C-alpha cells in the first residue's frame, strides 16, 4: 500500500516538473529569434525582450498604465508624520498632499493644498488660503479643520489622534518646529481655523524656514475621518487627497496604489496603478529592469551607470546633490582640539580620488557642509585642496612629526551619501600615511555606531548628512550648532560666533539676509575645519525608455502624477 502511495507521489511530482519544464519551452519558442542573435549586441537582445514583454503582458494589452517602481527596502509606515525614512515618504508623497509643495527638481516652494498665503511683517503669523472642493479618498471634505487636526495631532502627545500609547512619535515635527506643545523651543503657538478655507498659524518666534517645512512630505494632511476609523492602524491605511489612493501592502514585497479618479487636478494622474516593489539586491534590480519586469529602479550602482548610458531601452537619471559625506573630528579631544591638526588632515585627504574611486564620476568634491544650490551656499570659500606638503608643515607647527596615531571609526553600512564607507576609510588611511599619520580603522555595526559617535567615543569618524526641507539650517545647525552636541553635532564643534550667526539666520524671515548670514558662517566653519567635507553625491537611477515625464527630486520623494508610459 505504502509503495503505491509513493508511486502516486512520484507521479504528482513528475506532473509538476513537466509543467515547470513546459513553462520554459513555451517562452522558448516565442523567443527563438532572441536566442539565435544571442552573440550579437546586448542592446538588440534587450529590445527584443521588451517587445516580447509588450505583446505578452495582458495588462498593457488592455491599455492600463501600470508602473512598477523598484527600490531597495520597504517602507517603515505610511503615516507620514510618524516616519523619518525616505522609503516611506516616497510612497506617502503619492497618497497624501502638503499645504505647500516643492518644484519638481528643486526645493523652491510652490502651492499645494494651499493656493495662496500671506506672512505678517513680524513673521509671526502665516495665513493660508486652501483649495476648495477637494475631497479625501474616503469621500470626506478637505478643509481648514482637517489641517488643524493634523497639526494638533503632531504637536500634542495628549491629542486623541496622537496614538502615543501605540508608540507613535512625530520626531520630524519635533525637529522642524523646535519641539512639541509646551516645550520651550516649540515655535507654533496656535493654529486658528478662520473659516472652512482659511487657516492661520501663529508663531511665538519667527522661523526662517517655516514655509519650507510645510512643503515637506512628512507634514502631509490625513483625513480626520480616517484617523477616527483606523486609529493606530493609520500607518497601514493612509487616506489623503493625493493623486493615488492606497490599495494594498504586502510587507517586504510590494505596495499597490490605484489612481484617484476625483483628484483635484484635471487630467491627472496619468497612471492607473503604481506598484512600489522591493528588490533588495542592486544587481537583481538592474536585471529586472533590463528584462522589462520593472519600469523605474532606484539605487543604481554608480559603476553600472556608465554602461547603461549607452544601452538602448534604458534611460539614466540623476538626482541633484542634496547631501555630503565627511570625515569628522572630535574637536574637543587631543590631538584634534588643535586647529592646525584639523586643517592638516583636511589638506592631506585627496577628495577627488574618493569621488573618482567610489562614485564613478557621479559626485562632486565638496568644500562646504552644504550642497551647492542651497540658499547662502558660499562659493567664495577656498576650501582645502589636496596638498600633502602643506599638511606636513601644519602638523610640524602643531608639534607632530611622524608620530601621530589616530583611530578612525566607521560603519560599513551603505548610506545615500556614501555607498562604500570601507573604501573611503582605506583611502583616508593611505592619504594620512603619506603625511606621517598612522591611522587604525575600527569598523562597527550601524546601530551601535550611531550611539558611539553621538556620545563622543571617537577621535575621527566617517559620516554624512542628507537634506529634507531644502533649507541650510537643517545642515549647518544640526551638524555644527553647539546646542546639538550630544545628538547630531558629533564633531563637538563649539563656536559662539557660528552659533550666533546660525541663530540669527534661523529667526530671520528675510531670505537675502539669511543667505548672507549662512555664507558668513560657512567661511568661519571652513577656517576652523571641524570636519573634512568629502563629496556631494548625485544618486543615479534608471528607467525603461517607455517612462515619460519622470523627474527625480533631490529629497528622494517625487510625485508620479505626471508620469506616463509610452504605449
Amino acid at each position, binding site marked *: 500500500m505504502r509503495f503505491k502511495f509513493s508511486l502516486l507521489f512520484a507521479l504528482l511530482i513528475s506532473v509538476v516538473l513537466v509543467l515547470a519544464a513546459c513553462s520554459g519551452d513555451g517562452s*522558448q519558442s516565442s523567443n527563438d529569434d532572441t536566442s539565435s542573435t544571442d552573440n550579437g549586441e546586448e542592446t538588440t537582445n534587450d529590445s527584443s525582450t521588451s517587445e516580447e514583454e509588450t505583446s505578452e503582458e495582458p495588462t498593457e494589452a488592455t491599455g492600463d498604465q501600470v508602473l512598477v517602481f523598484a527600490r531597495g527596502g520597504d517602507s517603515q509606515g505610511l503615516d507620514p508624520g510618524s516616519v523619518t525614512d525616505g522609503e516611506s515618504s516616497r510612497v506617502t508623497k503619492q497618497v497624501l498632499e502638503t499645504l505647500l509643495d516643492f518644484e519638481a527638481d528643486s526645493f523652491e516652494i510652490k502651492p499645494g493644498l494651499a493656493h495662496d498665503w500671506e506672512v505678517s511683517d513680524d513673521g509671526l503669523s502665516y495665513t493660508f488660503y486652501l483649495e476648495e472642493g477637494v475631497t479625501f479618498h474616503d469621500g470626506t471634505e478637505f478643509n481648514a479643520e482637517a489641517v488643524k487636526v493634523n497639526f494638533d495631532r503632531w504637536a500634542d502627545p495628549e491629542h486623541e489622534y496622537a496614538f502615543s500609547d501605540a508608540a507613535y512619535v512625530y520626531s520630524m515635527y519635533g525637529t522642524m518646529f523646535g519641539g512639541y506643545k509646551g516645550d520651550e523651543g516649540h515655535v507654533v503657538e496656535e493654529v486658528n481655523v478662520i473659516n472652512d478655507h482659511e487657516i492661520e498659524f501663529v508663531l511665538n518666534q519667527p522661523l526662517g524656514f517655516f514655509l519650507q517645512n510645510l512643503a515637506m512630505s512628512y507634514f502631509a494632511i490625513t483625513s480626520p475621518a480616517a484617523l477616527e476609523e483606523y486609529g493606530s492602524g493609520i500607518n497601514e491605511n493612509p487616506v489623503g487627497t493625493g493623486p493615488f489612493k492606497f490599495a494594498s501592502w504586502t510587507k517586504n*514585497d510590494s505596495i499597490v496604489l490605484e489612481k484617484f479618479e476625483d483628484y483635484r487636478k484635471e487630467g491627472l494622474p496619468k497612471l492607473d496603478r503604481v506598484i512600489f516593489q522591493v*528588490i533588495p539586491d542592486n544587481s537583481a534590480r538592474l536585471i529586472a529592469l533590463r528584462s522589462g*519586469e520593472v519600469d523605474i529602479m532606484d539605487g543604481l550602482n554608480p559603476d553600472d551607470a556608465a554602461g547603461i548610458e549607452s544601452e538602448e531601452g534604458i534611460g539614466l537619471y540623476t538626482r541633484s546633490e542634496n547631501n555630503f559625506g565627511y570625515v569628522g573630528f572630535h574637536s574637543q579631544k587631543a590631538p584634534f582640539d588643535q586647529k592646525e591638526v584639523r586643517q592638516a588632515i583636511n589638506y592631506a585627504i585627496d577628495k577627488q580620488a574618493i569621488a573618482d574611486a567610489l562614485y564613478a564620476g557621479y559626485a562632486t568634491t565638496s568644500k562646504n557642509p552644504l550642497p551647492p544650490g542651497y540658499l547662502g551656499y558660499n562659493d567664495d570659500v577656498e576650501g582645502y585642496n589636496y596638498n600633502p606638503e602643506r599638511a606636513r608643515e601644519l602638523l610640524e607647527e602643531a608639534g607632530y612629526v611622524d608620530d601621530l596615531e589616530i583611530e578612525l571609526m566607521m560603519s560599513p553600512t551603505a548610506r545615500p551619501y556614501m555607498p562604500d564607507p570601507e573604501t573611503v576609510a582605506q583611502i583616508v588611511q593611505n592619504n594620512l600615511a603619506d603625511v606621517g599619520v598612522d591611522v587604525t580603522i575600527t569598523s562597527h555595526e550601524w546601530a551601535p555606531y550611531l550611539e558611539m559617535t553621538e556620545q563622543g567615543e571617537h577621535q575621527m569618524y566617517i559620516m554624512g548628512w542628507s537634506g529634507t526641507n531644502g533649507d541650510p539650517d537643517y545642515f549647518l545647525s544640526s551638524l555644527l550648532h553647539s546646542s546639538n552636541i550630544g545628538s547630531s553635532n558629533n564633531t563637538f564643534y563649539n563656536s559662539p560666533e557660528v552659533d550666533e550667526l546660525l541663530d540669527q539666520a534661523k529667526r530671520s524671515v528675510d531670505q537675502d539676509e539669511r543667505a548672507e548670514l549662512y555664507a558668513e558662517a560657512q567661511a568661519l566653519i571652513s577656517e576652523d575645519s571641524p570636519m573634512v567635507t568629502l563629496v556631494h553625491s548625485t544618486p543615479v537611477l534608471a528607467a525603461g525608455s517607455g517612462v515619460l515625464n519622470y523627474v527625480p527630486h533631490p529629497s528622494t520623494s517625487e510625485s508620479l502624477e505626471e508620469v506616463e508610459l509610452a504605449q
Partner: protein
Amino acid sequence: MLIPVLLGMTIITFSIVHLIPGNPAQVILGEAATAEAIADLEESMGLNEPYWVQYGIYFMDLLQGDLGTSLRSKAEISSEIWPHLAATIELTIFAMIFAIVIGVNAGIISAWKQNSWFDFLAMIIALVGVSMPVFWLALMEQWIFAQELGWLPAYGRQDSRDPIAAITQFYVLDSLIHLDFERAFTILKHLVLPAIALGTIPMAIIARMTRSSMLEVMKSDYIRTIRAKGGSQFLVIYKHALKNAIIPILTVIGLQTGVLLGGAILTETIFSWPGIGRYVYEAISFRDYPVIQSGILVIAFIFVMVNLIVDIMYKIIDPRIKY
C-alpha cells in the same frame, strides 16, 4: 520535549537580542535624531523598563498567543509574520521537491552503476553543488534565464503588475482556488529559479547520502537472494533496497527541510522573496526586538515540528522502530 525547548528559546533569544549593542529608537530615527526624540520613542516603546520586566511582559503576552507588535512598523507581528512564513514554506516545498527527486534518483543510479561514468559525473556535480556559493548560483541563473534568455522572471513571487488577491498566502494554492490557471502558471514560473538555487545544496547532500546508503544495502544478502529469485532490477532497487536504505536519507531530508524553512536569507534577498529569513534579518538590522524574538521562536517551532514529522515517518517506514 517541545515546551522546554521553546521556553529555553524564548529566554535565549530575549537575552541575546537585548545584549547586542544598538538602540532601536536610534536606528528608527536615524542620524538626524535628537536626544529628546530618542528618549520619547524609547519610552513609548517600553524600552526604558528593566530587562526582567520586559521579559515578563513578553512572556505573559506569548502565553496568550500574542506575539507582540513590531517596534518599526507598529503592526501586529502575528498578522505580519504569516505571509512571510507562507512565502518561505512555499519556496521550501518546491526546493525540496527538486532536491529530493533529482537527489534521490541520482544517488540510486550512482549506486546501481557504481564506478560508471554516470556515477563519477553525478558525484562531481554533487560536490560542485555542495560547494557552490548560493548567491553566485542565484545571480548566474538570473543573468542567464531572466536577462539574456528572458525565459523566466528575475524576482518575486508573482507578476507585480498584476498582483493576486491572496487567501492562504500560498500563491500557487490561492490561484488554484481562484481557478485561475494562467496565474498559477505564472507563479510556478516565478518559483523555478529560486527553488533551484535553494534546492541545489540539499540535492547534492541527498544524492551523496542516497548513494552511500544504497551501496551498503545492495551488498546485503537479501538483495542477492531476491536477485537470485529473478526479481527485476527496477523492483529490486526501488522496492526492496530503497526501503531499507531510506532511513538515513529521510534524516538528511528532514534536517535540510528544517534549515530551508529557517529562511534562506541569501536566496530570499537576491530573488526578492518576502520570506521569514528576510523578515528576521531586516528586524535584526533595525533592532526590532519583538520581531526578532517572535521570528526566531516561530522558526524554532517549525524546526522542531519538521523533526517530529520525520520521527513519525521512521515509525511508518520501519515498524521495528519504537519510542
